[in-house]
């Protein structure tokens, strides 16, 4: 039996290896790009009046005088072990990023919980009523939402739901000490905004993936077997559309982790995006690198999972001839 499954193990192992390779390349790019940022932490911290000797001594203390490749390997080695080093401000990077990252993941998970089922569900509805009223309405709405920038949504929702109706607080400044219900209540607006932002993309892709399957002969056959339109879409088309749907979901989930800076700023949400912006402002290179690395890991990991899901959802690959 093992030999029958080995092709799929090879495929998955291949994907994993590719994922790791991309991570190494990306980490190198991040490291070099950040090194090339204009400005210098030492001069920025010590001020213009510092003597060259003081600057040199400070650089030596932080290890900034070593060749770039030595610094790269040292950084990568520690990062793999979970140690992102000291931030230039003196605190360990892990301590700065850790709680913020958790907040971001929390927001992302909540949004995903709402948005993914909703998007797939609406995509199915749109496919089911293709070119009829529900589909046209969904398609118009999703076009509109794709064309509107995310911060605009944030402010409109804030105005309508928080200020005019007073349903939710305008700011989502959560603290670790709050209970989960209080957190949920404060996070409602950012979750809603992010849902609106990513919903359209996932919904349209779900619809397209299902519709492309709907023209296949086995769908006609299902119809001639007496299957209802709903059963045709859900039981016959959807299982064949898992791969493309998984990949669009992965892209959007990655965006939830790495691309929500604007929303975090608008709602004053203490997430990792804000942390990175602050770090860039302060030229705090270890923090920037750590954030960028986390973002890349998220993208690569999620896409790898999507790839594996689409391999596993394809019986042609899962069950050898």
């Amino acid at each position: 039996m093992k030999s029958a499954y080995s092709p799929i193990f090879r495929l998955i192992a291949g994907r994993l290896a590719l994922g790791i390779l991309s991570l190494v390349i990306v980490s190198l790019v991040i490291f070099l790009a950040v090194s090339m940022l204009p400005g210098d932490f030492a001069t920025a911290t010590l001020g213009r009046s510092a003597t060259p000797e003081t600057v040199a001594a400070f650089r030596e203390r932080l290890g900034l005088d070593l060749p770039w490749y030595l610094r790269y390997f040292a950084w990568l080695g520690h990062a793999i072990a979970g140690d992102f080093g000291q931030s230039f401000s003196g605190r360990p990077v892990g301590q700065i990023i850790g709680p913020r990252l958790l907040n971001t993941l929390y927001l992302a998970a909540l949004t995903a919980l709402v948005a993914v089922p909703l998007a797939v569900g609406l995509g199915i509805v749109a496919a089911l009523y293709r070119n009829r009223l529900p589909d046209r309405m969904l398609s118009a709405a999703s076009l509109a939402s794709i064309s509107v920038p995310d911060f605009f949504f944030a402010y409109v929702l804030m105005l309508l739901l928080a200020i005019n109706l007073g349903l939710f607080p305008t700011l989502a400044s959560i603290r670790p000490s709050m209970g989960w219900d209080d957190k949920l209540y404060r996070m409602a607006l950012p979750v809603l905004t992010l849902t609106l932002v990513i919903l359209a993309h996932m919904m349209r892709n779900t619809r397209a993936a299902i519709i492309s399957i709907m023209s296949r002969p086995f769908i006609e056959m299902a119809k001639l077997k007496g299957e209802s339109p709903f059963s045709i879409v859900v039981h016959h088309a959807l299982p064949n559309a898992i791969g493309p749907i998984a990949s669009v979901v992965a892209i959007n989930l990655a965006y939830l982790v790495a691309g929500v800076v604007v929303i975090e700023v608008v709602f004053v949400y203490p997430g990792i995006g804000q942390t990175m912006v602050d770090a860039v402002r302060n030229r705090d290179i270890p923090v920037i690198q750590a954030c960028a690395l986390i973002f890349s890991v998220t993208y690569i990991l999620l896409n790898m999972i999507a790839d594996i899901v689409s391999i596993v959802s394809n019986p042609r690959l899962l069950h050898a001839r």
Partner: protein
Amino acid sequence: MMKVEDAKVEAGPDIFSVEDLRIEAQIGGRWAEIVKGISFQLKRGEVLGLVGESGAGKSTIGLAALGNVKQGCRIAGGRVSFRGQDLFASPENIRRKLRGTRIAYVAQSAAASFNPAKRLMDQVTEAAVKRGGQSKAEAKRNACRLFRALQLPDPEIFGDRYPHQVSGGQLQRAMAAMALICEPDLIVFDEPTTALDVTTQVEVLMAVRNAIETFGVAAIYITHDLAIVAQMADRIAVLRYGEIVEQGPTNQILENPRHSYTRSLWAVREILTEPSQKTRTLLRVDRVSAFYGLLQVLDDVSLEIGRAETVALVGESGSGKSTLGRLIAGLKEPESGSVTFDGVSCPPSVSTRSKELLRRIQIIYQSADTALNPRHTVRKIIGRPLSFYHGATGENREARIGELLKLVELDPAFADRLPGQLSGGQRQRVAIARALAANPELIVCDEITSALDQIVQADILKMLVSLQEKLGISYLFITHDIATVKAIANHVVVMHRGQIVEQGPKADVLSPPHPEYTQLLLSSVPEMTSGWLDKVISDRRKLAAA
């Protein structure tokens, strides 16, 4: 003279009838009638064969029997009644309950009609469990029983497989099982064996015939092949342009057709080429072997093609015949062995062959739909090889395009059309004109008439023969159709599993004694007599018993 075929059919009321059925399709924004007042009746256990070219409306009528019309079509008049119930007057949910349970459908390509993401058992039993009132266990038992009756391997575990894990012939039988699971009153077979090899086709035909007899269902059997319908049907209706040209008992239609159109349906069986004199060798393939990965597809293959000669290469799909064609054209490199053209050894790949050699060997593919760029006009398609090989430009090129179109019996005005605006036969003619544009000496024809109707096929074969006389071209004609071989070959090469089983002049290969595989291949080709399948079945039983 006319045998009463209906004798085995129970006398009794019709269980299914079509009266003056009219169906319209939207063509270029206007409604045009594609089924023009069709009427026929079926009693329990009776099999009606619907024959005609593609576009005759066969499949449209078959779908209408399930109370279904394709997208872009509508019922314009008439009745389709199943046990007295007017299907199109009933609401969709009533029709849905009948489909798959009382009226079942067997599609042309089982490979495409099974859901690749679901196990066979789930698909076969789906209608029975959801609408046929059978429990899951009961439906599974019935399915296993049918798998056994249809002679599928390992009937107990056959259903656990996914569609890609079984062969095309097995899938087609699984689809017959899916149709039979609720013991329906009527089954529509829409070209169920067209996509199969001849040797596989016989097995499926036997299985289907047995099933029809065992379960006593009525059936509509749609095909373009009169020889097949002769084996399956009690009565035949010949369709053309959406009308029934002729309808009657099978024997009468075969032996004494009243309409000349019916006769023309077996036109391809009536062209015959003269046996050729030995000509000077143009191409020699010497002890060639080839692999795809680890899979050997050609094993020590040698053949010769003479000037102005047609060599037919026959075999089932997967026998390596297309690979051999591609190898000659330089599209596949051999592992060992050599190809010599006009006395000069050919480099193995197109990238290393001279332009002159490329010009002299052309290839035409089975599906002109995919071989012609849909966004290029016919002028561009034919003009490109003219410029590439002969540097033709301007008026010169234009004149040559006109000549080539006339050569393939198309109006020169077709130069402005896109492939999408041509019929299947016309597209294949354009593909032939493109090959001719190079002034080749050898054309590899890879199943070029397999996707075409009998009549169109006959016209194109005739044209190829006359082009050969005019231009002295040699053909390597790859086909799985013995009728085509009989029609145009001078020399026949039989391939099986990458090896050449037999080769020689047509008369020698097609007459006994045969090697075992050639015998199997030839005996599998349906003949126009109605008792042929019975004879094959009993012959093979005897053989198996011996």
